[in-house]
């Protein structure tokens, strides 16, 4: 079990664009607290699910790990190498070790570039191999993700493929340069329900074959439960609960996790659903609540919750939760 990624106190604040008058009249800057003091570590072969709703910061966290966005503060250590200072050419070359699979299979492919070329670019932009080697490898990759025979697909344009096929192209593109670490941003959200499991199976097979480690960003708890080994529940930029899947989904501790789990629709008409619906709505990340970010909506909140922010506390066997009232 070797460590592949350690993220410490990762924070990202995005400045809020101000209108002209606001800039004249107020000097105060406002920020979107997208990711706030997030820490976790991953071992080789883990599949970490970053689970949350909109505004939770899960997508931003994924992109921060790849340094596609510059963190405001915090450390990212990948395979022992500190990514904090890295930039420019060095970062570009490092990119071959870590890649991103996008959510929207249509929007993530340039409509004017043939699908085969789109995948080959992942090699040619990095200067990996000779052109003929690149083409050979691309063909192999296309077939590996199920687009067989490659000759049926290489010269096609994205709009000539189905949604599922386009997503496979996205996967091929991410993996063709042989990265060790892949962040998948809602990779199946925009794919038909009956095809999703196939894409997930493909990702698992590829993981075994190429020895990959994944971060899986999603709002779909059921899917996260299916594929991930570790789960981190995020709310308004913070991790509120993290641990092995069996613990987080099996015995959830944080009130938000409980609310999430009770909200999922169950495809079984006989299921009894006891919903815990938190009051109100997700507040704006520009002005997150003081203290525990969930406290205004939490059915279990006490005085302490509005004063201090809870830390992630060990609840046993690798299961951590940040809550003053977590039930045991």
């Amino acid at each position, binding site marked *: 079990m070797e460590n592949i990624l350690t993220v410490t106190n990762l924070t990202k604040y995005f400045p809020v664009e101000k209108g002209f008058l606001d800039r004249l009249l107020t000097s105060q800057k406002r920020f979107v607290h997208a990711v706030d003091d997030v820490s976790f570590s991953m071992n080789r072969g883990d599949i970490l699910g970053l689970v949350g709703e909109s505004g939770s910061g899960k997508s931003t966290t994924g992109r921060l790990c790849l340094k596609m966005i510059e963190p405001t503060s915090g450390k990212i250590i990948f395979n022992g190498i500190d990514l904090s200072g890295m930039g420019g050419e060095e970062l570009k*070359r490092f*990119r071959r070790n870590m*890649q991103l699979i996008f959510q*929207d299979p249509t929007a993530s492919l*340039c*409509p*004017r570039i043939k699908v085969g070329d789109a995948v080959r*670019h992942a090699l040619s932009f990095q200067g990996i191999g000779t052109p003929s080697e690149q083409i050979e490898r691309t063909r192999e990759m296309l077939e590996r993700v199920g687009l067989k025979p490659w000759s049926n697909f290489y010269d096609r344009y994205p709009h000539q493929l189905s949604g599922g096929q386009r997503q496979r192209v996205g996967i091929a*593109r991410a993996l063709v340069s042989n990265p060790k670490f892949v962040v998948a941003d809602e990779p199946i959200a925009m794919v038909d329900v009956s095809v999703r499991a196939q894409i997930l199976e493909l990702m698992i097979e590829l993981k075994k074959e190429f020895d990959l480690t994944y971060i899986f960003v999603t709002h779909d708890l059921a899917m996260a439960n299916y594929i991930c080994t570790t789960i981190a529940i995020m709310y308004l930029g913070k991790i509120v609960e993290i641990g092995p899947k069996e613990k987080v989904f099996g015995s959830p501790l944080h009130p938000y996790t409980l609310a999430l789990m009770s909200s999922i629709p169950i495809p079984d008409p006989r299921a009894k659903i006891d919903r815990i619906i938190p009051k109100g709505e997700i507040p704006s990340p520009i002005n997150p609540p003081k203290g525990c970010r969930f406290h205004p909506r939490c059915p279990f909140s006490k005085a302490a919750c509005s004063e201090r922010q809870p830390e992630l506390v060990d609840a046993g066997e690798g299961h951590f939760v940040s809550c003053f009232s977590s039930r045991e």
Partner: protein
Amino acid sequence: MGIAIVVVLGIMTIFSPWISPYNPIAINVGPILSPPSSQYPLGTNHLGQDMLSRVCSGGSIMFQVAILSTVVCLIVGVPIGLFASFTGGYTDKIASLVMDSIYAFPGLVLAIAIAAMLGPGVLNMALSIAVVYVPSYFRMIRSQVLTIKELPYIEAANMMGANKRTTLLRYILPNVLPSIVAVATINFADAILTAAGLTFVGLGLPVSTPDWGWDLTYGRRLLTSGAWWVITFPGIMVVLLALGFTLIGEGLSELTNPRLQK
């Protein structure tokens, strides 16, 4: 359909030296201001020049000017548009400022001002028209690039390690191309009208060159004396040519849209 019009007019222009019954410049070929007749099917103007010949050959200047000005616009406007909007920041702000200032002037007025400064000649005419139209290319490209820049596939290109030049040329430009084509053809048509306008007010070309604009100028004046044919036929030609290019433009923008190819 647009292609048909343009091709016909193009052929007419190119072959004009052969099909013009009379030398279009030669004056006093026929009686002054005679209405359309079998000998002079489109009549003659105040200088005794045969209208048919003038109509046939007048197009050549139009084509030249329009093509030249479009080429200049493309060479200047497209790269500036691409580079400025992609780079953003001050480059973008300055370029936009300049372009917007030019754009603020009414086209014909600006063209007249520049043509007056530069003096007559096909090249100068083309240049003055080009200056007027560059902003519209710039704006179109800028709005496209700003939209495309935010799309996931550009982020993907970045992830793969594409440098700025490659991203611009291989990922952004091909997607902007259809709108460039559309703008180009519309502007082509507009350029023709502006060119006609320039010669209409007496700028840009020496008097003797056969040109629809000149004919329109004199035709207007001659209208009051009842010689309707001098202005009508060149007028129709100008409209037809502009229409032809507009139609081509629309056809081309549909053609180059990959989604419509299946």
